[in-house]
């Protein structure tokens, strides 16, 4: 199949990722329904609700992006559709940043306006109990499953090299963090400190904004064909150096500059090579570029361009201090 790292477990992992995405959508519905019932007329849990609504975006983008990215290349889309996953990643990153920004603005506004959150009574079994106790239950349901969903997605994202899924995992993290902050906030409100809810939300929003900003920068970098970064650690991806080294080791290669770009779940590489001579050059190139997936399961294409000297821009892209 196209658009999948050629690893034996990738296929199974993709199925798992699909199940996780659907599970997330279902789970979000239940969390929203519970929040809605307990909220009643109170504004206090509205922030949490907005976060849950935004968490619908990444799993949907993952499912849609996956579908589109499978299509074969054609005349109109000569490079195929792998970038659909990159586009989904941008959308998910924006959603994550949105969750953080909303938490920050909402919390800060409430602090400035000195808005005292009203959490009154909730009728149940003919008794009226404090809504705060029920809110704990609802928030635990927004936190614990989200934590485990996020962990499972992160694992699948790494195998599939799917960044939409990775950003989706980050949203789940944001969900359990903000739910935990809300629980701390409600405890404070119960003890008579009206500002704890907003302060907790503002503090956790900073972490979510940091993570959203980092994902957004990475996603825009991917679209701008930045040198690839590792999926989760965001450290430099070793593949470009590895490719350059393995080509330079060949006898027929005098010098080489390798450029790798990330296209959704795949890498595409271009190597400009200055050959030693022209004898058997075509054979050399054919052999070197025949099986890119064998070099790295994520490498879909390796194009080798023989040149007499590097064009100016290629020279600029050359790694100054090879590892």
């Amino acid at each position, binding site marked *: 199949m196209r658009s999948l790292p050629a690893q034996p477990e990738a296929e199974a992992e993709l199925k798992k990722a699909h199940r996780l995405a659907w599970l997330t959508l279902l789970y979000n519905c239940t969390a929203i329904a519970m929040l809605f019932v307990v909220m009643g007329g109170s504004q206090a849990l509205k922030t949490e609700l907005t976060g849950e609504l935004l968490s619908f975006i990444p799993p949907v983008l993952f499912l849609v992006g996956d579908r589109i990215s499978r299509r074969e290349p054609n005349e109109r889309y000569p490079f195929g559709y792998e970038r659909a996953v990159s586009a989904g990643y941008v959308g998910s990153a924006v959603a994550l940043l949105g969750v953080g920004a909303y938490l920050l603005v909402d919390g800060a506004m409430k602090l400035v306006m000195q808005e*005292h959150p009203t959490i009154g*009574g909730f009728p149940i079994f003919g008794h009226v109990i404090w809504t705060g106790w029920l809110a704990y239950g609802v928030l635990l349901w927004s936190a614990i499953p989200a934590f485990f969903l996020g962990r499972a997605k992160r694992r699948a994202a790494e195998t599939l090299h799917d960044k939409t899924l990775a950003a989706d995992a980050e949203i789940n993290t944001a969900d359990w963090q903000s739910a935990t902050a809300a629980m701390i906030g409600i405890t404070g409100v119960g*003890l008579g400190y009206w500002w704890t809810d907003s302060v907790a939300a503002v503090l956790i929003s900073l972490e979510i904004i940091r993570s959203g900003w980092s994902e957004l920068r990475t996603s825009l970098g991917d679209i701008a064909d930045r040198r690839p970064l590792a999926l989760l650690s965001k450290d430099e991806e070793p593949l470009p150096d590895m490719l350059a080294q393995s080509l330079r080791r060949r006898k027929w290669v005098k010098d080489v500059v390798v450029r790798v770009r990330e296209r959704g779940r795949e890498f595409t590489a271009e190597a400009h090579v200055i050959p030693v001579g022209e004898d058997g050059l075509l054979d050399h190139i054919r052999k070197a570029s025949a099986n890119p997936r064998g070099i790295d399961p994520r490498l879909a294409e390796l194009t080798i361009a023989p040149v007499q000297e590097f064009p100016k821009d290629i020279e600029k892209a050359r790694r100054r201090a090879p590892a």
Partner: protein
Amino acid sequence: MFLDVRTIATALLSFLSTACDIPKDPEGTSERIASTHELRVGVTDNPPWVSATHGEPGGIEAELVRKFAKNVQAHVLWTTGSESVLVEALKRHELDVVIGGFEKRTQWSSQAGITQPFAKDADGKKHVFLAAPGENGFILNLDRFLTERQRDSGGAS
């Protein structure tokens, strides 16, 4: 059965909410009422819920307020005014409760505390009091009182 899940759950829940004395009022409304014996109520004319055109306020809600005041051993200090003026006073914690035939979906829900409904009118709209925002202990107390007295006051509209 003598002890079923519901009784246990109810007992546990009411234990949680009474024994721990949570939630508290950030601005100390309940304590103030206990020491001054004054319940400060804003009224805006809206018969049959509240009639406040002359003399002591009357109507369904005014009667409820009097009963609630008796429960918390306070007498009522009435203030008459328009909805917006009264809600402003509520936000400044100069009033404890505002009544005037408010429905659950009132436009003031983002600014004032909304109590549990105490009645449904002929159109099925739920009626509530407005309370000082965030005074959660006081509001819970009021919610308990209103829920106990909830009845279908059909015919009133």
